[in-house]
């Protein structure tokens, strides 16, 4: 069991947990968080790909990918949260 | 011959029919109605057959023409249409549906003329259909229940006939490989084709069992229409068979047998059914059916033995002409009779009607008699098996027709046909008399008109009187029988025995009178004698006489004997005659 395997498996596991959460969760916020987990898992996996045997330097491309992914995910999360808030206030209005 | 001249007989009536729809022109068109067939007539009289013209661009290539046979057909058909047109003008003067009648009348006329002139399949069929369908309006004209029923029956048969004709023509044209009638006549057609054609034309001809439409239709149509229906249009069936079937070229013994058998049945069955009808025009219709039975006999013989056709053909044409004129006259006469208001007029018309009736029945040397004899002669060449029967049938048909005619005349008086209101009594006389005259004069005119085709007629025997006589006899018998049926057997017997009973009664009363007279005489004579004796002193004289006698006896051997004077009485019976029971009707009405 090499570290990259462990990391990889962990990445997949995290992604899987997130996926299950995203699909099964009822609460809107939970689903956003589950999706975040997914993205973390995916990032893990890519970072594993960047890992090289100690003498070598890690591959920079996956790092770039991961960073991009994080940025994208941050903005997506922001939009999702904004929408959730808006929905809350709309629903509150509708109930009144 | 120009196409226009040949097309004019068709075009003119159509044109008039078209104009008739315009209200402004109606009066004029009705006036022209009798002259609509004139182009046809003049064409037939002036043209030199065979002649023809064609218009390839019309329908499937229209050929019109005139040959010896069709010329004759055109002549008598046109004459009849003329007369019918003239009478229609008066008959429908006050009719609300006169326009409809006029249009149909003219269209039927165009069709009738056209089918006689057409020389190709499509043209023939077109005109045939035009005539048949237009006549529907004629039959239906009065719109009453009888007319509705008759028209329904008529149109049903017409449709069936047309369809059979269509199929027959298609088959025939295909088998002959041509659309010209003259080619069809020479081609070997299949049995199916001939059968279908026979069916199609048989409907028009009214041969049993295809006759059902005919009597009701002729009965229901107005007089001018029935005249042409019966006189002219049913001849289209005959003409069609002559024009299309390969008569004289190919033998169709089965078809011929069927046709002859049908003709034979028709001849007599029509009589049997016809005498039961009470509408005089329907009776005339049945007479037409019966007459067409004769025609069917001729056609059948021709189909069976092609060799005989040459002889049969002219006779059939003649018979057709004869029947057309005689029957046309009878129908028109029916109208004329109906138009009469007075008893005298009716009687006069009845007498005039007797002439065509007798002609139709076949008085010797009349057109009817000649036709029948000529047909007998012509059929002599035909099938030897059938010949005796044919002769018998023809002879008997004279009797049958006489019977029908008698029935017709009687019905005229018993159930007088209705005439439209406001018709002048003399309105129909002229056309009627003209056609009747034509029928009478036919034997004289025919040689002029028909030339060589008239030969069999000219050579025909005048015919015997006895069928006619037998017919009259039978009519009388039938009248008696019918009378008996009407009033019941017992009464009839009473009627029958009445003269004898009357005779007996009279005789009895006479005898009684005689007895009384004798008794009186018995009383009176002795008295008178005694008186005389007293007066003449007979007592002394008697004694003296007695003495003288004794003396004489004593002296007798010496004296010659002297007879006694005898006294006779005058005949006491007066002159007597037999009085038959006087009946207002000769024929019973039941």
């Amino acid at each position: 069991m090499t570290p990259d395997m462990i990391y990889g498996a962990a990445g997949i596991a995290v992604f899987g947990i997130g996926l299950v959460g995203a699909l099964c969760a009822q609460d809107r916020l939970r689903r956003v968080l589950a999706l975040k987990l997914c993205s973390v898992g995916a990032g893990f996996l890519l970072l594993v790909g960047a890992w090289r045997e100690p003498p070598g330097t890690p591959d920079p491309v996956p790092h770039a990918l991961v960073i991009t992914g994080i940025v994208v995910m941050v903005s997506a999360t922001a939009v999702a949260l904004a929408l959730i808030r808006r929905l809350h206030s709309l629903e509150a209005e509708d109930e009144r | 011959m120009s196409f226009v001249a040949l097309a004019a007989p068709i075009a003119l009536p159509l044109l008039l029919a078209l104009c008739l729809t315009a209200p402004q022109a109606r009066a004029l068109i009705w006036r022209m109605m009798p002259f609509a067939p004139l182009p046809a007539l003049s064409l037939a009289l002036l043209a030199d057959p065979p002649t023809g013209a064609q218009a390839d661009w019309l329908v499937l290539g229209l050929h019109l023409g005139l040959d010896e046979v069709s010329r004759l057909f055109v002549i008598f058909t046109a004459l009849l249409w003329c007369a019918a047109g003239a009478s229609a003008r008066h008959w429908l003067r006050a009719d609300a549906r006169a326009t409809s009648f006029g249009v149909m009348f003219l269209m039927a006329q165009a069709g009738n003329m056209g089918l006689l002139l057409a020389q190709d399949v499509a043209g023939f069929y077109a005109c045939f259909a035009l005539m048949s369908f237009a006549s529907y309006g004629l039959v239906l004209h009065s719109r009453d229940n009888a007319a509705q029923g008759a028209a329904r029956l008529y149109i049903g048969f017409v449709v069936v006939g047309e369809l059979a004709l269509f199929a027959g023509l298609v088959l025939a044209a295909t088998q002959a490989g041509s659309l010209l009638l003259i080619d069809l006549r020479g081609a070997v057609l299949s049995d199916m084709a001939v059968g279908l054609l026979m069916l199609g034309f048989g409907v028009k001809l009214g041969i049993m069992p295809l006759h059902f439409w005919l009597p009701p239709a002729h009965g229901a149509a107005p007089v001018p229409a029935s005249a042409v229906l019966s006189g002219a249009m049913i001849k289209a069936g005959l003409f069609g068979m002559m024009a299309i079937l390969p008569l004289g070229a190919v033998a169709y013994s089965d078809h011929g047998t069927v046709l002859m058998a049908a003709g034979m049945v028709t001849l007599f069955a029509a009589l049997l059914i016809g005498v039961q009808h009470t509408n005089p025009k329907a009776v005339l219709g049945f007479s037409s059916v019966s007459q067409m039975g004769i025609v069917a006999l001729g056609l059948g013989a021709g189909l069976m033995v092609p060799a005989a056709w040459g002889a049969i053909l002219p006779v059939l044409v003649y018979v057709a002409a004869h029947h057309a004129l005689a029957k046309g006259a009878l129908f028109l006469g029916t109208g004329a009779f109906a138009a009469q208001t007075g008893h005298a007029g009716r009687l006069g018309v009845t007498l005039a009607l007797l002439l065509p009736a007798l002609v139709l029945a076949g008085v010797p040397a009349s057109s009817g008699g000649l036709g029948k004899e000529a047909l007998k002669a012509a059929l002599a060449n035909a099938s030897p098996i059938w010949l005796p029967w044919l002769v018998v049938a023809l002879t008997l048909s004279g009797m049958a027709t006489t019977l029908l005619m008698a029935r017709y005349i009687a019905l005229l008086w018993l159930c007088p046909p209705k005439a439209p209101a406001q018709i002048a009594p003399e309105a129909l006389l002229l056309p009627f008399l003209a056609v009747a005259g034509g029928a009478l004069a036919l034997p004289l005119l025919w040689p002029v008109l028909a030339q060589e085709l008239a030969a069999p007629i000219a050579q025909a025997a005048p015919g015997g009187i006895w069928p006619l006589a037998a017919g009259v006899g039978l009519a009388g018998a039938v009248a008696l029988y019918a009378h008996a049926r009407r009033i019941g057997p017992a009464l009839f017997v009473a009627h029958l025995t009445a003269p004898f009973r009357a005779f007996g009664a009279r005789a009895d009363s006479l005898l009684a009178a005689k007895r009384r007279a004798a008794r009186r005489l018995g009383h009176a004579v002795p008295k008178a004698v005694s008186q005389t004796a007293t007066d003449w002193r007979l007592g002394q004289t008697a004694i003296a006489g007695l003495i003288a006698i004794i003396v004489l006896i004593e002296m007798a051997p010496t004296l010659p004997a002297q007879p006694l004077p005898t006294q006779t009485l005058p005949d006491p019976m007066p002159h007597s005659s037999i009085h038959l029971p006087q009946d207002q009707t000769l024929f019973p009405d039941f």
Partner: protein
Amino acid sequence: MSVDLSPVMLSIFLPLFGAIVAFMLPRAAGAIGLATLALTTGAVIALARDVLINGAAILPLGGWGAPLGIDLRADGLSVAMLGLSCAVGLLVSLSALSSLRGPEDARQRQYFWPLWLLLLTGMNGVYLSTDIFNLYVMIEVIALAAVGLTVLSGTTAAVRAGLEYMYASILGALLFLMGVGFIYLQLGRLDFAGLAEAEPTGALIAAIALMFVGLALKTALFPLHFWLPAAHANASAPASALLSGLVVKAALYIVLRLAQHMPFPSETFLTLVGVMGAGAVIWGSIQALRAERLKLLVAWSTVAQIGLIFVAFARAGEQGLSESWKAAALLILAHGVAKAAMFLAAGRIKDEIGHDVIRDLDRAPIRPTLAQFTFALAAISLIGLPPSLGFIGKWALMEGAMAAGYWHWVGVTMAGTLLSVAYFSRVFAGFLRFDRVRAPVGEHQGWALADAAPLTLAMMAIALGLMAAPLLGFLEIGYALGEAK
């Protein structure tokens, strides 16, 4: 770094620039948006001319070549898709100008243009990308903009649908990202060319499958379509037109590209795709038959139509797969144009008569005739009746299936066509029925400016069918695998 003003660059960066400017100057947003679109369209036309004359154009971004750097490549298919987004976009924009005119639409007007231009950036980026990671970024851009457009109308239903869309979109993107990651782990490169050269190993196929699922989620392929009807039905008319006409096409385009470049997966996989497509056709149609509102019906029809496009992929063998893209491309173009027209027309109808309940369409005393006509024209293309582009696409699809002996896919296509006739004829009946209106019916006669854009789109959908041959010829320019395989 010299600024390279090639049309390829312009077609991506012009909209981006426009979006920023429009965001900063909300009052002039409309004008800026239109100007940007006009310029972008100009750039695309120039690019098309270039491609037509010189063949496919490759532009290495920032001077780095593949496999590391970002290459932009414009071939026939890309340019056609660019053309689609510009043409449809331009006309939808025109329509948006007139439909978002009222004072109550001020907020919408403010955000519509930046979002839409951002969306265009993303889409143009997708069409010009040559590597899958770039695609990932672009589809995320698209997703954010699209969600924004979805919720723009601000109603509860729209926001709810938008959130649902957001979840689906993020999840789809993440699945795609996972796929991308796997591919990188396998191959060490992310460009199409590398993908094309790869040996089809199990892991690679799994990675592709992951990507496919992500894309299926984004393009709403049955049974992952759950988010689409609500999102498309509840957005405002121009937004729906863009979402349905263009946005789903971006994901479809990626599928198409992958089909061109990826190693042949397996018959089973393709059959699965076909089955999912067939399911979409059937289910979408059934839902459309049941839909009570016009826009919902149209949205469900999108589901069905997308399914049909996936049916096009279900062919036998590598040759079949590489051939099937023609039908798919034609269908994508046809659907893009026609569905945009239809949504705009549906929006017009809703605007005019105040509701879009199908059953009561005929009760309205107002008949927006031209919009109805537009709707019908668009329906003709969507049903696939000649001579529309939809017909040609369907023809190509069925021809391919038939040539391969796949009669069942022919049957599915025919069933889909019949079903589409059935559900669209519900709408026609509403248009053409007159006996339930008591009031005198006021029919719009003559031309209305608001109807011009959808009508033009609908006519395009029909007329393009007559130009299918040159169009197909254009699509094949620079077709990478056309020569390779």
